[in-house]
């Protein structure tokens, strides 16, 4: 007859062994009459063993699939958010000589990752979103790639509320609308900025850009030096110093770009913009040929501008392109048929 195992609560740990019989085996229970020498002292039928193993395997796969599915869902949600942001950038296309600002709110705390690549064609602009779900940052899903957008920001901008401010870049004709992305959590204080910049920022009414009465924790953008300057703008030399590195700009649009973005992003976007400038110069050159048939004399030398744009290595060469652009602008203003 099989011995029945009886567990009796003792409330204290004894661990005594007498004649190969365990009397107490853990701190709260002891098992009476269990003979370790006897075969099959724990009887589990094969059916149970089989069911337990297969059940465990099924459970493991179910949990694994659920976790994978959850991660995929998070990536999908991030990818959707990225694509949605790219779509929402379309209305930021401006008309002639105007600036626009628009708020962007994401339901959860997010990181907008800005990636710029300038090697192929017109280069690429990728926006990917990483969201904070249950206190953890999700993997930034598949980014949304665009070729005709130029976003100037740090590599990663964090928050729930963001501002998108766009301004056209004219060099001398409109090349693109530059988009400046900032988080509502970061405010910028433009100290001693030129009157034109002050007027522009005031008319924009973007809640995180200040020209006076700046919050104490704002990022100080100094135009004439000063203390605690995070960004130093030199209007005369056309340089912006940020994080110990200097970048060069021409026109106010690129100045904003240099203020709001990392050096790497800025240089990459400048490269992309110059590629577009080159292509637009070719298009205007072809237009000149088309309208010359109608009697408009070809008076603007655009190939020189295209050449200087294509030979740009970094932002320090912008001054050369600007000189060519100024020449072309003068020629266009004097031309019988203006090209732009």
């Amino acid at each position: 007859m099989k011995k029945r195992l009886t567990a009796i609560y003792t409330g204290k740990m004894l661990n005594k062994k007498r004649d190969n019989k365990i009397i107490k085996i853990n701190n709260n229970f002891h098992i009476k009459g269990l003979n370790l020498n006897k075969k099959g002292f724990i009887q589990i039928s094969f059916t149970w063993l089989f069911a337990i193993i297969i059940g465990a395997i099924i459970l493991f796969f179910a949990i694994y699939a659920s976790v994978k599915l959850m991660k995929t869902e998070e990536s999908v949600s991030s990818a959707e958010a990225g694509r949605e942001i790219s779509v929402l950038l379309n209305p930021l296309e401006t008309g002639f000589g105007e600036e626009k600002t628009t708020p962007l709110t994401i339901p959860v705390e997010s990181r907008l990752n800005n990636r710029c690549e300038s090697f192929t064609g017109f280069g690429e602009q990728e926006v990917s979103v990483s969201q904070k779900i249950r206190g953890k940052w999700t993997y930034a899903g598949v980014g949304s790639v665009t070729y005709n957008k130029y976003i100037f920001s740090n590599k990663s901008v964090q928050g729930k509320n963001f501002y998108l401010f766009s301004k056209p870049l004219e060099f001398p004709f409109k090349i693109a609308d530059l988009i400046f992305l900032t988080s509502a959590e970061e405010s910028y204080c433009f100290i001693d900025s030129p009157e034109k910049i002050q007027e522009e920022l005031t008319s924009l009414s973007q809640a995180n850009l200040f020209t006076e009465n700046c919050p104490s924790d704002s990022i100080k953008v100094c135009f004439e030096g000063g203390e605690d300057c995070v960004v130093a703008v030199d209007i005369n030399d056309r340089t912006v110093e940020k994080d110990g590195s200097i970048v060069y700009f021409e026109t106010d649009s690129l100045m904003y770009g240099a203020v709001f973005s990392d050096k790497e992003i800025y240089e990459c976007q400048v490269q992309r913009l110059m590629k577009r400038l080159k292509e637009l110069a070719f298009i205007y050159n072809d237009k000149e040929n088309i309208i010359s048939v109608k009697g408009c004399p070809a008076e603007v030398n655009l190939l020189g501008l295209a050449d200087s744009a294509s030979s740009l290595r970094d932002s320090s060469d912008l001054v050369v392109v600007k000189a060519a652009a100024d020449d072309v602008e003068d020629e266009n203003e004097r031309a019988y048929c203006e090209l732009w």
Partner: protein
Amino acid sequence: MVKMKKINKRLSLVRSTPSMLGQRKAQMKIQQMAFMLIAVTIFLVMAGMFILMIRFSSLQDTAKLLDERNALLLVSKIADSPEFSCGNAFGAARSNCIDTDKVMALTGRLRDYPGFWGVSGIEIRKIYPAGTGTECSLENYPECEKITVVDSGEGTGVSNFVSLCRKEQNNLIYDKCELGRIIVTYKGND
């Protein structure tokens, strides 16, 4: 006969040994469990596939919706992009104005613009004065009505009214603007 009966009786005794009966029962149980497990696995796989199918179908819908929104927002703004816009070339700066001379120049350089606008088709049509719908080329321009910037093939189109301006000559060079439509196409019926 009696001998045979005795043998059969012995055999039946052997067959009905309790340990062997137990083995057969266990085999049956294992078979039952195996079939049950296969059924459960198939059910779980099918349920999973069903969930995935629903999820991917909703993903496709979302992608389509975003494409549609992209096209709708793009069509209202594309005329102001530098490759199309009139700028100051026709007097004062104006919005929703397309410089067709520039667009014709662009059509010759489209190989440099693959996927640039992120839509499957862009077409500009003159609607007034109406014509025969002739496709524009450098040979017949401006005696034509349609400029295909990006050839879409098939898709859903959204359009916006624009003015189409160009330089014309009639003894003097002058600006001529006509009413047109820009149509942006996205792949909505796939």
